C-alpha cells in the first residue's frame, strides 16, 4: 500500500462549484465560468501546485427533475480531463465513467486515450447507474438493481482491463523486409463471453502508457466493496471517525485478499468533504442556510491546521493510505487545501514536496505490469 513510502496520498474532487449544494451561490464561486474550458484547467493547475496525487472529475447521467437552485449540468469527465491534460504536467487525472449504459469497448479506448494524451497520468473511477431516469435516457433496458449494476461493472472492469492488455507493448515492428507494420501475434483477441455481454477485441488503441490504467472505485456499499476489492487500485471509503475509516479499509482489503490479490495492491483513501479556513464556521453557516445537505453527509469544518492534524492522525494510525478531499466551495477550499493543509502535511513529513513519479501508477508505488497476453521473451 502507499503508506510504505511514509507519505500519504491526497486527491481532490473537482465537480461544478464544489460539493456543497449551495456552493455556486457562495461569493467566492466562479459561477459564470463553470462550463468554460479554462475553469477546470485553473483548478487542476492549482491542485498541481499543491503536489496533489490526482484530481477526480465526477460524472453521472442525470436522474430526477433538475432543480433550478442546483448545478445539475456537467461536462463529460473524460473529455474535460483530456482538455486539462496538455495544460498540466504531473497531476493524475481520474475520470468517472459509468458502466451500466456505456459500451465496455468505448470505456476501454476512451480511458486508454486519456492515458496516452496525459503521458500515463490517467485513472478510471468506475460508477454505475441504477435509476429509471437514467435507463430512459438510453431506452435499451430497464433500470438495474445495485447488485446487478455492480455485477455488470465488475464484468466491464474485466473486459476493459483485458482490452488494455490486448496490444503487447512491442506490437508495432515496422519490418521493412517483410512489409509488416505490426506483429499480429502481439495483438490479441480477448474473446470475452460473460453474463452481460460479449466482446471480441483486440482494442483499436495501443496499450496505454501505464500498461494498466489505475482503477478507482467508491467502496461505499457492500456491492461496491466487492467490485473495489476485486478491481480497484484506489478505493474511496466514507468515514466520520478513524475507526470507521479503518473498518472500511479493512473490508476492501479483505475482498482483495479473497480475490487472490495482494491487499497492498489497493490504496484506501478516506473521503472528506471540507470547508477549510479561519472563517470556515461562518462560511458553512451561510451555505447551510441556503441549502440542506443530504442526510448523513459529514462536512469537516475547521482550519487548515486542524484538517492536517486529522489527516496525519488517521494516516499514522494505519487506518488509511490517504484522503480524497471534496472541497465545499471551489476554488476557495481548494486554495486553502493547497496553501494551508499541504504545507502543514509537508512540515509533518507525511506529504511530498515535489513530484518524482512520472505516472499515476508509479506515484502509488505500483510496477508497470506486463500484458497478460505477452509471450515471454521470444522475439520472432
Amino acid at each position, binding site marked *: 500500500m502507499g503508506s510504505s513510502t511514509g507519505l500519504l496520498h491526497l486527491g481532490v474532487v473537482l465537480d461544478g462549484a464544489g460539493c456543497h449544494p449551495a456552493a455556486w451561490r457562495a461569493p467566492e464561486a466562479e459561477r459564470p465560468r463553470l462550463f468554460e474550458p479554462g475553469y477546470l484547467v485553473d483548478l487542476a493547475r492549482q491542485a498541481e501546485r499543491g503536489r496533489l496525487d490526482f484530481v477526480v472529475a465526477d460524472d453521472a447521467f442525470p436522474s430526477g427533475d433538475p432543480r433550478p437552485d442546483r448545478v445539475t449540468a456537467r461536462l463529460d469527465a473524460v473529455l474535460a480531463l483530456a482538455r486539462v491534460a496538455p495544460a498540466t504536467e504531473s497531476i493524475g487525472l481520474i475520470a468517472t465513467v459509468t458502466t451500466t449504459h456505456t459500451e465496455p469497448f468505448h470505456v476501454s479506448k476512451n480511458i486508454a486515450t486519456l492515458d496516452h494524451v496525459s503521458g500515463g497520468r490517467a485513472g478510471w473511477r468506475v460508477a454505475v447507474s441504477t435509476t429509471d431516469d437514467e435507463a430512459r435516457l438510453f431506452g435499451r433496458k430497464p433500470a438495474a438493481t445495485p447488485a446487478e449494476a455492480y455485477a455488470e461493472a465488475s464484468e466491464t472492469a474485466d473486459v476493459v482491463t483485458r482490452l488494455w492488455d490486448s496490444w503487447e507493448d512491442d506490437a508495432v515492428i515496422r519490418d521493412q523486409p517483410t512489409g509488416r*507494420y505490426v506483429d499480429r501475434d502481439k495483438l490479441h483477441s480477448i474473446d470475452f463471453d460473460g453474463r452481460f455481454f460479449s466482446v471480441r477485441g483486440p482494442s483499436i488503441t495501443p496499450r496505454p502508457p501505464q500498461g494498466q490504467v489505475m482503477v478507482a472505485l467508491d467502496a461505499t456499499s457492500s456491492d461496491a466493496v466487492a467490485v473495489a476489492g476485486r478491481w480497484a487500485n484506489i478505493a474511496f471509503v466514507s468515514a466520520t471517525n478513524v475507526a470507521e475509516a479503518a473498518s472500511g479499509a479493512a473490508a476492501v482489503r479483505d475482498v482483495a485478499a479473497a480475490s487472490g490479490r495482494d491487499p497492498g495492491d489497493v490504496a484506501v483513501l478516506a473521503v472528506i468533504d471540507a470547508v477549510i479556513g479561519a472563517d470556515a464556521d461562518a462560511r458553512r453557516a451561510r451555505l447551510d442556510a441556503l441549502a440542506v445537505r443530504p442526510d448523513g453527509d459529514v462536512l469537516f469544518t475547521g482550519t487548515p491546521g486542524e484538517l492536517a492534524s486529522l489527516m496525519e492522525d488517521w494516516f499514522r494510525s494505519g487506518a488509511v493510505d490517504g484522503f480524497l478531499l471534496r472541497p465545499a466551495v471551489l476554488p476557495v477550499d481548494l486554495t486553502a487545501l493547497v496553501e494551508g493543509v499541504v504545507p502543514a502535511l509537508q512540515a509533518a513529513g507525511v506529504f511530498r514536496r515535489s513530484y518524482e513519479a512520472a505516472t499515476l501508477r508509479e506515484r502509488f508505488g505500483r510496477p508497470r505490469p506486463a500484458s497478460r497476453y505477452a509471450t515471454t521473451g521470444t522475439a520472432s
Partner: protein
Amino acid sequence: VSRARKPIHLAAHFPGVNNTTVWSDPASGSQTDFTSFVHLAQTAERGKFDFFFLAEGLRLREHRGRIFDLDVVGRPDSLTVLAALAAVTDRIGLAATLNTTFNEPFELARQFAALDHLSAGRAAWNAVTSPDAFTGENFRRGGFLDRTKRYERAEEFILTCRQLWDSWADGAVVADAEAGVFASPDAVRRFEHHGDQFSISGWFDVPRSPQGYPVQIQAGDSDGGRELAAAHADVIFTRHASRADGQAFYADVKGRLARYGRRLDDLKIIPAATVVIGDTAADAEERADHIRHQQVSPQGAIAFLEQVWGRDLSGYDPDGPLPDADPDVDGGISITRGRVRHEQDPLAVAAKWRQLAGDRHLSIRELIIEVTTRSGFVGTPAHVAATIDDHVQSDAADGYILVPHLTPHGLDEFVDRVVPLLQERGAFRADYEGPTLRDHLGLARPPAATPVRSRPTGGVP
C-alpha cells in the same frame, strides 16, 4: 455571369489507417502518439485551415482470417484526442467521425456538447453508419442493423441529438446567486423521442454549447448518403476530387438543397485529395511516383489482388504478371473485413485489370499502383495553388480535405509553400475571422429551439 470569388475551405485529414499512410519512410513518425496529433493540428492551424479531422474504425481490419499487418494500425479515441488538442490550439475546428450504429444519442450528444464547450465552439461531427456485424462483435449490441436501415438510423440519430441540444435555450444559465436560480426553469425543456430506432426521454444535462450544434459532416456517396447530406449536413466529404467528377457531384448535391429549403452556401462540398509538391513539374511527378511505390509495397500489392481474387495469392511474384485463373466468386464471406470497399463483381474487375495490365505491360504491383492511386494535386506550389483555386471557382468543390501520406510532417510543405500562394490570390483567408468553426465555414449558428426541418416525403431510399 460574374460573381464574387468563392473562398476556399481547407481541412486536414489525420493520416488514415490504410495504405495511403506511408510508414516505411524514414520521416514517418508515430501513428498514435499524442505529439503526432499535436504537430499536425498545429500545422493546419498555422495554415489557417478550417478544421482538423479524425476518421474512425472500431475493429482492427482482417485479411484471410488474420489481423491485417501491412498498413499502419491503431487509433486513440477521437473525441478524447480532440478535447486534448483543444488545449494546444485556438481556432482550428476539431472534427470526429462517430458511428450512429455503435453509439447512443444521449451519450454522443452529451460528448459533442462537452467538446464544443471545451473548445469554445470548434466541434464537428462526421456521422457515419455501419451495418457491420464484424465490428459489432466488439459491442454489447452486436451487429444488429439491417443494411437498408442505416441511413434511417443515422437521420433519426442526428435529429434526436438536435432535440437534446435544443432542450436548453441560449442564456438558460442565469447563475443568479441572490435569487437562487442557476438554470432558468423556463429555459430548459424535457425531451421525449419515440421512433423506430430510439425511444428515449428525460432531461439533457449540458447547457447549449457555443455553436448550438457541432458542425455536421456527412460522407456518404450513395443516393441515400447524398440525400441525408442535403437535408442535414453542413459539410459533405467525397472522393470526387477531379475537376469533371467534382463538378458532376457538386451539381447533383447542391441541386438537392432547395427541396429542404436550404441555400447553396449552407452545405460545403469538400473532396478528399492528396498533394505532392515539387520544385518543378517533373520533380513533383517523380516524388509522386516514389510515394505510390511506398504506398503499395510488394506484399501490399498481393494483398490487394487477394481482395479481388478471394484467395491466397502469396505464391505470385508481385513483379510478375497477373494470375491466369479467375477470381473465386462463391467464397461467401469477404476475404478482407473491416475495410471500406466498393461492392463490385470480382470477375468484371479481374477482366478490366487484365486488359489494363496487358495493354500497358504492367506487373501486379504496377497495376495495383495504377488502380489505387487517389485523386490529388501534383506539381509546383504555383500549379497546385492555381489548380485548387480553379476547381473551387469552377464549382468542382468548395475546398479540399487534404490527406497527407506522412505522420506527423505530411502537411508542413503545403502550409509553408502553397497556403501563402492561395492567400496571395485572395482565395484563402489570411487569418481566422471568428472564433468558431461555423465562423470559418460561413455557417449560421442554429437558433435555439427552432423546430427541426422535416423531410418532405417518406424516408431515404
